[in-house]
């Protein structure tokens, strides 16, 4: 087999870069999307990106703590999703919209 132009094993740094890219995408969705559910999902994407970096660091440092943190992030994300989606449901019931720009009752 001819030698690949890329290393046989990906360095941990690649994972971190991927994590950064996904995080950036999450931020972009968070900033630009108008549907509140999509915004919420962008936040989940950011959490996932961070989880990836945790796992990657865990590999680099050869310890299991990163996995534990990821686990906690997931648990908290589950709780957050439950409450957040309940809030979204309530908002929709009251305002019949999911557009973040129209949900501005906190204005003044």
């Amino acid at each position: 087999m001819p030698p690949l132009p890329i290393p046989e094993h990906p360095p941990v740094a690649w994972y971190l870069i991927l994590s950064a890219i996904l995080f950036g995408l999450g931020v972009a969705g968070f900033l630009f999307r108008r549907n509140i559910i999509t915004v919420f999902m962008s936040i989940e994407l950011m959490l996932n990106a961070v989880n990836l970096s945790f796992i990657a660091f865990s590999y680099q440092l050869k310890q299991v703590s990163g996995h534990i943190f990821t686990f906690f992030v997931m648990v908290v994300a589950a709780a957050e999703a439950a409450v957040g989606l309940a809030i979204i449901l309530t908002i929709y019931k009251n305002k019949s919209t999911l557009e973040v720009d129209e949900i501005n009752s906190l204005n003044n």
Partner: protein
Amino acid sequence: MNENAHQLWLIPALPLAGALINGVVGQMRDRAAHAAAHGHGHGHGHSHSHSHSQGHDHGGHDSHAKPDPLVSMVSIGSVLLAFLWVSKTLIALGDLNTAYVERYFTWIASGSLNVGFDLAIDRLSAVMLLVVTGIGTLIHIYATGYMSHEKGYYRFFCYLNLFMFFMLILVLGANYLLLFIGWEGVGLCSYLLIGFYFLKKSAGDAGKKAFIVNRVGDFGFALAMLLIFIHFGSLDFGAVLPKASGVDTGILTAIGLLLLVGACGKSAQVPLYVWLPDAMEGPTPVSALIHAATMVTAGVYMVARSFPIYEGAPMAREAVALIGLATAVMAATIGLAQNDIKKVFAYSTVSQLGFMFLGLGVGAYGAGIYHVVTHAFFKALLFLGAGSVIHALGGEQDIRNMGGLRTKIPWTFATLFIAAFAIAGFPGLSGYYSKHEILLAAHHHAHWMYWVGTITAGITSFYVFRCIFLTFFGEYRGKAHPHESPAVMLIPLILLAGLSIAGGFLGIPHWLEPFFPKMAEGHDAMAGNITTLVGLGGIVLAYLFYVVSPGIPEGIANSLRGLYNLIDNKYYVDEAYDSAIVHPLEHGSRIVLWRGVDAGFIDGIVNGMGGVSRSIGGALRTLQSGNIRSYANWVVLGAVIFLVMLGAAGGAR
């Protein structure tokens, strides 16, 4: 012999178990019984409750309620078992020349403070244990009869057993902190039981009053404990008391005075006695057990327990004697004008507690404890007898509405009469011996104390017999139909009457003699005779006033109107406290704290900050667009700033 051979923990644990069972199982059974009663209508129990359908002391009466036999059995059984265990342990321990200590576990270990959960028995606590469990048993038996028609029967016995638990912890505790736990615990139970008829406002208020007044004392006690810990490095009796003689007098005085403050609260001494008369709002067995025989003597016990400290601090000891004497005189004179049978006995309790403190203060610790014991006998008897009278009259407590009861309730009359003779110091009865020892010691200490004490003893016998004569002699002035109490109430009365007679021959002073420092000998026979005569004189005078020619007291009251009013209004102490403490506190709070500190200073700060933040907020409010997207932008901006700072700081390496 293994270390904790006698299982002292069982003694408090038994009543605690009783309290738990009554609290949990009793409540469940009570609910179940209620549900059943509602289901089956009201046919049952009517015939039984008809003859007894009188409200006892106060409200809370429930003619449908039937006492739960399980609750009665558990409560009496647990206390009786505790008594038996105490007896067995004491027999097994023999002469307690040194304290017997059982250590269970380290309770608090914090820095140099190391407090163990240790229980101990010595000669002093042995006496107290027997009194607490013995009289406790009798009163529990009595209470099953007295409370049989009350709502919350299980609740009452749950509290009462809980009280026994804390009291036994108080007595058995081998360090000040454990004593304090018991001390606070009995205070709590006292509060709960005074407010037992919590639907009545006066009962609730009385409970609160007792609780709050006791806090003043407890504060002193807590400070004393702190001082003890600072200067002795421990709270164990075994470690502190033997070292007391080597400590500076000033410190000992401070500790002694602070302990005295605590004791004043718990044992209802001047100036903190005001809660005890009000505490009579509680059911009568409670008054007998807690507010006459056991809890209120905790202060005496504590001072006697700490006698090495007082030996090293003559000033503090003098203060104990003075406070005791003042209390004795004050309470006795107030007792002259009381018309509520329980109030009379309440003031007499305060007065007798004063005698005990007098005994402690003049160095007759043994006599003081001796009086605790005999007083427990006859005062419990007085209260239980009073309860029996009240029971007989269906809740009537005013002696002006009684009279002529000696033929109607003869057993109650006989036992109460014995108790009255005992408290009056009739020769041969228990009160005679203990009171005489105290007064003789006082005579030895300072003549004037003896004279004041003797006169007080005379007043005591006068007002106690005034109460007895008004209740049992003359014509019946009430409306209810008196009837004798059931046997379950009479048997404790008779037993206590026996103890009141024989209490002087139990050899308690002899038993306690090696424990306390020797008193200087030299009894004045003359002084003893005078005391006896004064006591008898009080009885005769009462007989003249209230049986032979009932018009005299009225005349005296009229001719000494001012003095009478003063006494009748209890020296205006409550009013004085109101105007001296409560009102200034209220006004001070209103003017200084509220208007000045709160409105002026704190509000000023708050308003100032509010104003500043409002102006800042005004600038910032444009940021709060209510638009989620703008918030998102701010969040990201924050993240960017954070990242920049991170980068500037050289990354996360």
